[in-house]
Each structure stands twice: as C-alpha cells, then as structure tokens.
C-alpha cells in the first residue's frame, strides 16, 4: 500500500478517474470503521454537499488544484454548523455559527471538510492524552502497545497516517504540528507568525498560535498552505503581504545551500537512534550540494521556560471567556455566581488546562509579573536575536524535531515536565515567529518514525518547502505507510 497524496488525488479528480463524491464517501467510510479515535466528529452532510458542488464546478470548467479534495480539520477551527469542541467538555455542546478564515479560504478553493479531528484539550499537550474525547492511537504503534500520536494535533496526524484523510490541518503553538508529524511520519509545517489568519481558530496563546498543513509530502504541504494562507482584516495580527505560491521553488537545486546545526539541539536527552537518523539525513543534504556547519543559539536553553510562562499566561486570559454564562457547558447545580464559575470551570476543564491557567495567572499576578511574564518576553527577544545572528550566514537550521520517537500512552502523564520536554526543539521557532517544519528522516530499529526539523528565516516558507521537497526526491521515508495500516490493506 502506498500513501495517497493531494497531488495524486488532484490529478485523479482532474482526469475524471474518480469523483469528489466517491472520494468523500470512501474516506467517511474509512473513518467510521477506524479505531484510532482520530476524529471527534464527522460532518457527512456538509462534506457530501461540498463534494457535489465541487464535482459540478469541475463540469463547469473550474480546475483549481484542491477542488473536491477531502481534508480533515482540527477541532480547534470553527466551521459553521459543526460541533467545535477544542477537545474539551466545556465546548461539548458548542455549534459554531461561523467558519474560521483559513477553513473558509480552503472551502473557497473547493476543499471538502470531512470532519473535526481529536486534539489535546485547548491545544495544551504533546500526546493527545488530555482530550476529553479520549486518547488517539498512533497508527505506527501496535495493538499491544498503544503509542501516542503526539499533540496537540494528534488526531490530525493519526488521521493522515492511518489513511483516513490525505491531509489535515493542525495548529502549532510550541510544536503541536511538527511533533505529531514527527511521531506519525508526516510532513508538518508551522508557517511564519501572521501568515495564516487566526480568526475562527480557538485561541490558546495568541502570540504563538499558527495554523498549518499536515501532509505526507512537502509538495502537498505547499499546495495546502497555498489554500490556507493570506491576509485577513478580521485578525489584527495577520500579515498584510502579497499572496504567494508556496510551490514556486520546490524544484530549486540545493547546491550551495548553507545548513546550520545548532549544537544546543544535539545535546543531552536526545535519543541515540534519533540522533543517528538525523545525521544520515544531513548527509543526504550534503550529497545534494549543501554545506553544513555547527552553529550556536546560546539562549535556546531559555526557550522552554519562557514558553511555559508566556503561553500559559496568554491562555489563562484567553480561556476566561469559558464561564458558563453565554454558551458552552454550565454546571447543573450551583448556589450563586461565584459557585457557578467554580463548578463550571472545575467540571468543564481537564487537569492540564487547569494547571496552565493557574501557572499563567500566577505569572501575570501583581508582584510576579516583572519576574515572570515581563522577563520571559525579554528573553524571547534574545532567543529571536540568536536566530537573526545565525541566519546571517545560514539558509536553514536543522536538527531533530523531538528528543525521542512516539512513547507509550500513559508513560508521561504523571510528570508534566517530562511531557513539556517533548517540545524542547520546536518551541524556539514559535517564540521567534519563524517558519519551521518536520519531515520524516527515517525509521528506528523499533520501526518508529523520527522527524527532521527545519527552520528558515521569517517569510521563507517557499524555501523551507523546497529544502524539504528535495530530500523527499532522493529518499522514500515519506512514502512509508504505517504497518498496521498497510496490513489492513485497502
């Protein structure tokens, strides 16, 4: 069994080999039969209506690349008329009355939305284990040993890896696209901050959140990003830059490309096998004509602590609106207003969310703001400056996406810090707002994917995708289907 790419589906639809309605029905059926718990809900009525409309448009002569292609959408995006839970009980009964801009952009290109994928509650997590709607099984794991798909976009990653959708949307605040992409053998891209609109995307940490594509290939990621990105006047942090075609330089030669390897990303804590796979990947790049040198991001050790002050602080404020007053879950019994707030939020939120709200409130509180929040924002500037320095004579930075491969369900839930350490390599790019991605570098002896992490300067997604694409021209890791799925056969 091989992977199904967006490019292939686009070609098949274009040639008339298959219709959008057929494709959509097929995927909906696979989702229904799957046991990965990758989806919180599906929207068959919407999907089929969209598929029918797409097929009709094709007859009328429309031929845009993603017309009629089914995509899975992370349940953090509001889609008009759909249950939008953000992985939480507190939004279990919330039906969005409007559609997020990035999704709307995709719909305008003819994309079909299959359903809403599972995720860590309010995007807080690295394993999809904090979801109110249950854990997600990583297709690369086995029946006897359930592995996490990563998080927070665990459902999206598992859906694509399990062939339940050819691609999915995710969001990335500290690594939530790239880390699950690494754990599930996918290509995951977090664009430059401001590239994709945040309107309609339920906010976790406003200065860090970004939507992005999760696909099998860099080419697919470029196609999907094309349909998602763009200035939105409804988002004041949206970048007002001209529209780009992110596929425009996929085929550029990498001759003379300068790769920097930050030594801080190869230190203690990195699994040996992962390190080896990364080294092999780097050698492939050298064969493609790239030069490699060691660089340093001296303040990167401050990235994780800064992130775990800034993100919870912003989240503690963003989540205040979930108070049982206007929409969403409200506790059934309460004695007065304060009691209603306590009970609603205690019952409606999971432990990790409560943990981060408390950390965030503390970091912003009187007497601690200067020492924590303010200080973290200053450190953020230093971390960002480090990147400016190294990018003076590097085109791209590389390293491992995660310190390990996918771990067992339940193995890190007792120790939040060990869970937070998952994001140690991915977080700096969020703090600096830089475009970053993960592609599959290879499989370990246990048969688990490891991710190669790439970071380019601000607004250079096209370059990033080119660099990723060229690796995928000379290797075939990205084409591997998880054994449990390949054996299932379809």
């Amino acid at each position, binding site marked *: 069994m091989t992977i199904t790419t967006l490019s292939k589906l686009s070609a098949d639809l274009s040639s008339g080999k298959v219709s959008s309605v057929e494709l959509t029905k097929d995927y909906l059926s696979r989702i229904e039969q799957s046991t990965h718990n990758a989806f919180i809900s599906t929207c068959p009525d919407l999907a089929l209506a969209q598929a029918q409309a797409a097929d009709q448009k094709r007859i009328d002569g429309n031929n845009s690349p993603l017309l009629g292609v089914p995509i899975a959408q992370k349940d953090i*995006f*509001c889609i008009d008329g759909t249950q*939008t839970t*953000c992985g939480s009980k507190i*939004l279990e009964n*919330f039906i*969005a*009355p*409007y559609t*997020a801009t990035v999704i709307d952009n995709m719909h305008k290109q003819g994309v079909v939305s299959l359903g809403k994928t599972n995720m860590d509650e309010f995007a807080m997590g690295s394993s999809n284990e904090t979801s109110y709607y249950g854990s997600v099984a990583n297709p690369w794991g086995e029946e006897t040993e359930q592995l996490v798909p990563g998080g927070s976009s665990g459902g999206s990653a598992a859906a694509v890896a399990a062939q339940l959708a050819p691609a999915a949307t995710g969001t990335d605040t500290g690594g939530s696209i790239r880390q699950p992409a690494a754990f599930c053998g996918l290509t995951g891209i977090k664009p430059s901050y401001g590239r994709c609109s*945040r*309107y*309609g*995307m*339920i*906010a976790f*940490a*406003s*200065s860090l959140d970004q939507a992005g594509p999760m696909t099998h290939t860099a080419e697919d990621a470029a196609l999907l990003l094309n349909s998602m990105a763009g200035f939105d*006047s*409804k*988002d*004041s*942090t949206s970048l007002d830059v001209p529209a780009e075609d992110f596929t425009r330089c996929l085929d550029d030669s990498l001759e003379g490309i300068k790769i920097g390897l930050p030594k801080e990303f190869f230190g203690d804590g990195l699994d040996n096998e992962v390190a080896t796979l990364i080294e092999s990947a780097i050698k492939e790049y050298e064969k493609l004509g790239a030069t490699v040198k060691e660089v340093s991001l001296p303040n990167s050790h401050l990235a994780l602590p800064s992130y775990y002050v800034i993100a919870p*602080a*912003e989240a*503690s*404020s963003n*989540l*205040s*609106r*979930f*108070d049982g*007053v*206007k*929409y969403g879950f409200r506790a059934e019994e309460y004695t007065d*207003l304060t009691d209603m*707030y306590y009970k609603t939020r205690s019952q409606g939120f999971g432990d990790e969310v409560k943990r981060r709200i408390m950390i965030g*409130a503390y970091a*912003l*509180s*009187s007497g601690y*703001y200067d020492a924590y*929040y303010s200080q973290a924002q200053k450190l953020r500037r230093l971390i960002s400056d480090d990147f400016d320095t190294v990018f003076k004579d590097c085109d791209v930075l590389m390293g491992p996406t995660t310190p390990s491969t996918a771990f067992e369900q339940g193995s890190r839930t007792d120790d939040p810090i060990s869970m937070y350490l998952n994001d140690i390599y991915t977080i700096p790019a969020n703090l600096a707002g830089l475009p970053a991605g993960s592609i599959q570098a290879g499989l370990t002896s246990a048969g688990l994917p490891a991710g190669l992490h790439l970071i380019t300067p601000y607004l250079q997604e096209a370059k990033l995708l080119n660099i990723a694409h060229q690796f995928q021209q000379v290797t075939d890791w990205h084409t591997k289907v998880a054994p449990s799925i390949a054996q299932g056969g379809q």
Partner: protein
Amino acid sequence: MFNWDQRWEVVIGLEVHTQLQTKSKIFSGSSIAYGAEPNTQASALDIALPGTLPVMNMEAARLAIKFGLAIDAEINMTNVFARKNYFYPDLPKGYQISQMALPIVGFGEIEIDTPDGVKTIGVTRAHLEEDAGKSLHEDFQGQTGIDLNRAGTPLLEIVSEPDMRSPAEAVSYLRKLHSLVRYIEICDGNMQEGSFRCDANVSIRPRGQAELGTRTELKNINSFRFVERAMEYEIERQIDILEDGGKVVQETRLYDPDKHETRSMRSKEEAHDYRYFPDPDLPPMVLDQAFLDEIRATLPELPTAKKARFETEFKLSSEDASLLTNSREVANFFEETAQKSKAEKKIVANWMIGELFANLNKSELEIAESPISTSQFATLLDRIADNTLSGKTAKQVFAALWEQEGEVDDIIEAKGLKQITDTGAIEAIVDEVIAASPDQVQQFKDGNDKVIGYLVGQVMQKSKGKANPQIANQLLKEKMS
C-alpha cells in the same frame, strides 16, 4: 455653602468615563445606538465566541486624540492596549481591553473657575477602553439578565490629578469637562443614558501634611448635584472616623441619593489583581504627526478661547461670557442673534441669560429646541432698541413668541403694545399722576430723589406699561421742578 473643620484638607481626584460618539463599537462593527432591544447589538465578537478577534475602530482613536489636543496634552505616538482580567457576567471575555502602561493621551490640563479665580486641574491621562454590558437584577425572578448591547462601546477614561480641594471644585471640573467633550463633539454627555459617568476618589488629611490620606472611591453618581452631595457626606464621614481615632478603610462606596449617604459596596473580595498585560491580539497603535495635524484642524474654537473672545469682542463680563459659552449651541445662538440685531451686545446677553434661559429651564428644553428663533429674538431686541417696546412690554411679546403666536411685529400690533413715545400723550398721564400723588411729589421736592421710581411706576401702570419710562422720568422731573 458647605463648611467643614478647617483642620482637615480635602483631596479629590476624579475618573470620568465618556462614551465616544462613534458609529460602531471600538473593536467590532456593532452599532452603539442607545435603547435597542437587549442583545440585538452584540455580534460574535461582542459575546466573546471562541475564535473571535478585536479589530481597532480608528474613529475612537481619532476622538481620543481630539480630546488630548483640546487639553494640550501629550499624545503617545505609540500606545498599547492591555487586558484587564476579572470575572463578571457582563464582561463576556473575562477581560476588558483597556490601556495601562501606555495610554493614548498623557498629561494635560483643564482650567476651572473658582470663587478665588482660575485654577488649573491636572489631567493625568486619558485612555481608550471598551465598556462592559449591563446586568439587570430586577424583572427576572431571582436571576439576573445580561444585556450585551453595551459591551464593546468605546470609552475614553479621563483621570484627573488629585488636585481638587472641595466638592465645589470637583463639580466645577466636571461641568467644564462635560462642556468640553460636548464642544468638541466626542461625547453627547448624556448622564441619564450613561454616556458620562463619574467616579470620585475622596480622602482627607490634616492640613499641612504632605502624605495623602486613605481614599475611598465613590461610584454610581449620575448627576452633578449628586456628585456634590455624595462628596460632602463622604468627607464628613471620614472626618468623624479620624476624629474618633479610627482609620478610613480603602473601599468602594455607592451613593444613595434617597438616604443621602454612601454605603460600602457588598463584595467579599479584597482589592482586585487585574493581571494586566499587553493584549497580544492587537499590535501597538502607531500614530504619525500628519494624523494628529489632520485632527487638530477639526477642533472648533474651544470654550476657554471663546469665553475670552466674548469678553473682549462683546465686552461681556466674565460671568456672562462663561454662561454664554457653556455650550457651543448656546454660544452660536448668542452670536447669531447679536449679528442679526442692532441692540447692544450687553442687552442681548441679559435677555438670553435672563428671559431665555429661565424659560428653557422651566420647560426643560435645550437651546436647540427653543421655540424662539435667533431671528425672532433679534427682532424683539431691535424693537426695544428703537423704543417700540419697553422692558415690560417686551416681556409680554417674548411670552407670546414662546407660545408661537406669531412674529414680533404682528404680536405688537395685535396686542396694541406699541410704546407711547408721543410726549404729548405721556404728558397727559404724567399730569394725572402728579395730581394723584401729592405726598410723593412733595417728598421729591424736599430732596428725596428715589421717589421718582414710584412716580414713574405710576405712569407705567396708568399707561399699561406702554409709556416710555425715560420720557416719563424726564417729564415728571420737569413738571415737579
């Protein structure tokens, strides 16, 4: 006049929330029109649906800058929105978008008139923020109704320095500020509708002490009269506490106008920690000089300048000039009338401040609703100037104009009010009066000049107010000498 023990010095600072006259809310496109059905002017953003984001309505910034320029304040060319976090049902996001460290308007000054002359009151800052919704506690059988129409309405919070030293000064400042925001058309100043809300910080300290005493915050004061009375009560309350050896508790108190007392607000929490931080959804607002210049060009002649001009150009007293420049509409009415009429400006002023204001107040009308137009008013004043009417008959014509009985000349005709200036006719009446008042005539001849008033009065009475009093006066004197 309110007096208290002069051992104590009163320190008052005022925070005024003015609702800005934009078409839509500060961060959403919803209307801010008053009086709509509940929750009909609350969009997805206003009710804080997940995923919604604020977008700045620059008209609110424009009006804020206009205010800053009008009080000669610093404008912060880079200013930042911050989140003020707290939970309350009428605050949908669980935070209010406001400004903390870098407000749009910095330090400025407002001059007020006091019995001891002009005093300058400092304005610490003015910042933009969004209003919360309304909580309605009646009508819902033990529950509270939340109306989010008001949530997101743009406010300019104007904070004064603690420069006021008496309730009267505080009221003077408020009136000046109220007049100013209406002058520059940034706020309609409607206190009943909540467009202009005042909170007062009141403390006392022993006279001569530099350190400020503990202050209390008075809220829910929605008229100028209540402001003064609430402060007076609070000052006395604090004096009583301190004189008994106690300590004033820093708290928020509500004024009850029926009982004339302030009461501590029923709340269990200690002082709020609002956990302010810059709002990551809104980039810093960066202004350029061209924008400021454009706004400055829209400023009208401001009250202080207009008052000064009225004093010099029209030779009015400070008091009269002040009354006539209280609002742009009043000032315009005066100037239009003065321009149309040949009467002396002082006469125009007197008639406006006297007869016109009195009638407007009695009928509870604004000057814009005056039944008498500037043209009619000007004509009336002309008829006094040309002796067609005396002061008394002019008042009758005024009353008739107010009831819209017709034009000035028509009324004079209809009521036969033309003043008698024919010396012969007046002479006849003068002779009658002299004949009828021998005692008073004798008093005059004996040197009592004042009795001429009585005699003139008699002539006026006999002529039903129509005799020209100056001519009557003159004739009486001639005939009695």
